[in-house]
């Protein structure tokens, strides 16, 4: 029963929470740059407007691909909040991302294709850290399990056993949230190096779908961050929310203080951090426990 409530809450509340966080993100970023910034509800105004624009579809397959992308990403969240297998969640997350890649490459636009190639590179960069994070949850004592509903019942927070995995996961979150310095495929900001990268050829309505899917995804990713902290003690949920919000704020700070890097730097830095933080953590776990 509680898992049904969790699923419904996720499906209904996640877009509002994600959009609200997005609005706060823009407001905080503006304040960091000495500007007033848009209203906090601006992302909702934007999506509302995008839906009301004329439908322009470059390629008929695009709408289907975008809807599939959205459906799969939603399903990932549903699985997670239903307390299912975390490994399954992340496999599905990557599957969903490939639909976005298809939607980006189906139009043959040079800018969109460039953005798509970079998206694939980003996936290559963050995927090891994501898989290692799943493995970390499994290795963390006492019960070796991938199942989320059992992971939240552990006597101590997973982060105590998995600090390295946590660092690696937060590091790749910058890529997943499309924050500078790792916003190679597409950016939320006005720098127009590859116009809008992978989303260049999305018409207004498809772009609205993309934005809403991003909100769902953001909530899911922050929930995974929270999973590092949650344990059997109900009070740990408060700590988990605080940690997730702190990580979210850290991403905004990084976004506003770093310049975009080239793809080879992205790949090297991400893999080195993943190997050093998560790899060493994994070795210790395997040798000691």
């Amino acid at each position: 029963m509680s898992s049904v409530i969790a699923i419904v809450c996720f499906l209904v509340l996640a877009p509002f929470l994600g959009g609200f966080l997005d609005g706060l993100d823009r407001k905080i970023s503006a304040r960091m740059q000495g500007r007033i910034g848009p209203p906090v509800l601006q992302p909702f105004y934007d999506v509302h407007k995008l839906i009301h624009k004329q439908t322009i579809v470059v390629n008929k397959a695009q709408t289907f691909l975008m809807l599939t992308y959205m459906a799969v990403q939603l399903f990932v969240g549903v699985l997670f909040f239903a307390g299912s297998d975390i490994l399954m969640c992340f496999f599905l997350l990557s599957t969903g991302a490939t639909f976005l890649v298809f939607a980006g490459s189906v139009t043959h636009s040079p800018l969109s294709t460039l953005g798509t190639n970079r998206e694939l590179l980003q996936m290559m960069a963050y995927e090891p850290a994501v898989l290692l994070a799943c493995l970390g949850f499994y290795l963390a004592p006492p019960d070796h399990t991938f199942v989320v509903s059992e992971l939240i019942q552990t006597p101590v927070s997973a982060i105590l056993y998995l600090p390295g995995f946590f660092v690696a996961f937060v590091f790749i979150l910058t890529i997943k949230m499309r924050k500078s310095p790792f916003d190679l495929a597409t950016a939320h900001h006005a720098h127009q190096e590859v116009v809008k990268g992978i989303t260049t050829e999305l018409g207004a309505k498809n772009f609205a779908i993309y934005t809403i899917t991003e909100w769902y995804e953001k909530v899911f990713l922050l929930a995974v961050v929270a999973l590092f902290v949650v344990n059997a003690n109900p009070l740990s949920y408060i700590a988990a929310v605080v940690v997730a919000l702190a990580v979210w704020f850290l991403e905004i700070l990084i976004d506003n203080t770093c310049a975009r890097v080239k793809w080879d730097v992205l790949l090297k830095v991400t893999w080195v951090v993943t190997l050093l933080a998560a790899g060493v953590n994994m070795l210790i776990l395997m040798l000691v426990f």
Partner: protein
Amino acid sequence: MAKVKKSPWVLHYDGASCNGCDIEVLACLTPVYDAERFGIVNTGDPMQADILLLTGGINAQCQEVVKQIYEQMPRPKVVVAVGTCACTGGVFKEAYNILGGADTTVPVDIYVPGCAARPQSIIDGIVKAVALFQQRSDEHDKGIVNGSREGES
């Protein structure tokens, strides 16, 4: 009626300008003027843009590009000519390669004069364009297309 006026996304294209007006357009986004407080986003993508800001006159080379950008923008849309060059051709009007102002190529709705146009007047022009954008959106929802100047070019 959909309230679209809170989210005007601007696409800025530089025709044959001296770059003076372009600097002023970008100045609108700086902390001093902060156009984003009106929800204005400077996007580079015509397929997601609402307001086309044109600076500089039109020459034979950029005419096709401007036309294509305009056609790629989904309705409802508004065109703003920024600077004297974009309004009439300006100081380059008599030059052999200049065809004239932006209205030689696309239907212009709002003219923002000045050489270079000041950020204050550019923002003023965009605010006027936003009102027109809302009106067009209402007409678009009612299915009126020819009431506005769409499809004339």
